């Protein structure tokens, strides 16, 4: 099957100051994948995802979304396919009520009125916004306002969701909710890219990680492989989740990837196994 995002030898140089922000990036992302994009500020990750929404065009190389070369496409044309959710919801919310906010995107895409209402109902249910419907977005606390930001993209039904730090500034209860929503988006067939530093999101939610450093994709692998690569972790200033570090320290065979855990559940499963072996 055709990848939903295809990047071929992409370079990007910003005209001001001749700074190369992306160098020789090639990758394929398949429909339904859930991907984490990590790297420091300035590593190129924002430049990369801006090519997927059409805000930037390649200096060299090509980007295809669902088989279509993005070069001649306008941001508006891509908006039906790719949705971008800002880290700060204040950058995208402007209507007087949550209801209007949710209607805006599909209306703008020319979706028939009845279907717009249907989508709004779906979004309200999906994100649990029943009680917020007629409130002004700025009357809603930050954690829920961020969910409203996601919901406004949901009503546009894009194939690809790009979420910028979806859990920053959230407490644990909302964070857990966001994890469930991200998985649900994927289960509904969407492709989800999370630009994120939330270690639990990266270890327990995403299937694959793109690691950027100095304008290049330096690793494209499963979280298990990324977290067990000391050199990559050190050079990106990331620490694996605490339980992953524990397993890395305790495993006897330093080359066995199966002994690297990504969650407390996995650690318990491993403990169960070794417990049974001892009894035999």
């Amino acid at each position, binding site marked *: 099957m055709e990848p939903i995002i295809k990047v071929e030898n992409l370079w990007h140089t910003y005209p001001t100051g001749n700074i190369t922000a992306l160098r020789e990036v090639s990758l394929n992302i398949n429909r339904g994948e859930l991907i984490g994009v990590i790297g*420091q*500020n*300035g590593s190129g990750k924002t430049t990369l995802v801006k090519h997927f929404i059409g805000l930037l065009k390649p200096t060299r190389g090509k980007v295809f979304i669902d088989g279509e070369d993005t070069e001649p496409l306008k941001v508006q044309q891509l908006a039906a396919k790719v949705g971008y959710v800002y880290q700060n919801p204040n950058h995208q919310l402007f209507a007087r009520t949550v209801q209007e906010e949710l209607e805006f995107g599909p209306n703008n895409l020319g979706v028939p009125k009845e279907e717009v209402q249907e989508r709004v109902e779906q979004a309200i249910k999906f994100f649990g916004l029943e009680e917020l419907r007629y409130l002004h977005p700025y009357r809603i*606390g*930050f*954690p829920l306002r961020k969910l409203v930001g996601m919901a406004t993209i949901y009503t546009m039904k894009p194939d690809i969701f790009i979420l910028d730090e979806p859990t*920053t*500034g*959230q*407490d*644990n*209860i*909302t964070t857990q909710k966001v994890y469930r929503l991200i998985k649900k988006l994927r289960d509904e067939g969407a492709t989800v890219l999370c630009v994120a*530093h939330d270690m639990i999101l990266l270890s327990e939610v995403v299937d694959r990680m793109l690691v950027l450093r100095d304008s290049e994709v330096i690793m494209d692998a499963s979280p298990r492989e990324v977290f067990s690569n000391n050199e990559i972790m050190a050079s*990106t*200033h*990331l*620490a694996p*989740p*605490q*339980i992953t*570090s*524990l*397993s890395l*320290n*305790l*495993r*006897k065979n330093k080359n066995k990837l199966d*002994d690297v855990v990504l969650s*407390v559940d996995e*650690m*318990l499963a*491993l*403990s*169960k196994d*070794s*417990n049974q072996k001892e009894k035999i």
Partner: protein
Amino acid sequence: MSEKKPVIEFKDVTFWHGGGNEKPAIKNINLKIYEGDYVALLGLNGAGKTTLQLCINGVIPNSIMGDFEGEVIVYGKDTYDTPVREMAKMVGMVFDNPEFQLSQMSVAEEIALGMESLGFSYDEMVETITEVLDIVGLQGLEERSPFGLSGGQQQRLSIAAALAMEPKILVMDEPTSNVDPIGKEEIFSVAAQLNREKNMTVIMAEHEVEVMAAYANIVIVMHEGEILLNGTPEEVFSNVELIQKLGLRLPQVTEYAHRLNQLNLASIKKPYPVTLNSAIERYKDIL
């Protein structure tokens, strides 16, 4: 041995924000914090962490409208009748969004702003600016615009501006929520260094429990305006069921201890390990 005196003491403090709020933002707070403590403040959004922190520098009740009951004593001074500018010399504040705190054209001016209002001389200011920029690792950036700095650098500038007033207490409200991993590392390590080397008392609200377990010597858990737990990280995080019921995270190695016991896979005694190093020691025979 003489009894240690707290540097911050809350006596039966309750605060209602203005505008007819029936529910107090914090209620019946009794709390003692000692010199050199590194306190982690945990709780969901709305638990009262920020309100409690604003009581320490006297912004509550002196600048924020509301009804205040009880007493907060900081270094022997009752915050109720101590001017906020005098409190600012004792208590430095750093908030979650550095952009809200920064206003000046240059890094140096940003730091000078607070000092000017406290009447420092020009020479003192120049000397202090160099000194505090050095502490937070921003030396040489005096003339740069604060808005051209990275999130981590901006937040360290906020810390430098707070340090310029030579406070004894540093209060930080989710200081790393808007910065990348390098920035986080920088902020946590600057705070730890000030705590360790200058014996500065640090009170930090933060969601990252694993990091707090490693740095703090006291963990306070708040819920709906009240303090439910207050003790060492090991003591507090060993209350696994309560913390989970409140919807808060535990350090993963602590959750692991609890579940090993539940599943009868091992018998880990309380207090449970909370940091990676103590966990490696405790669990080395399990796998």
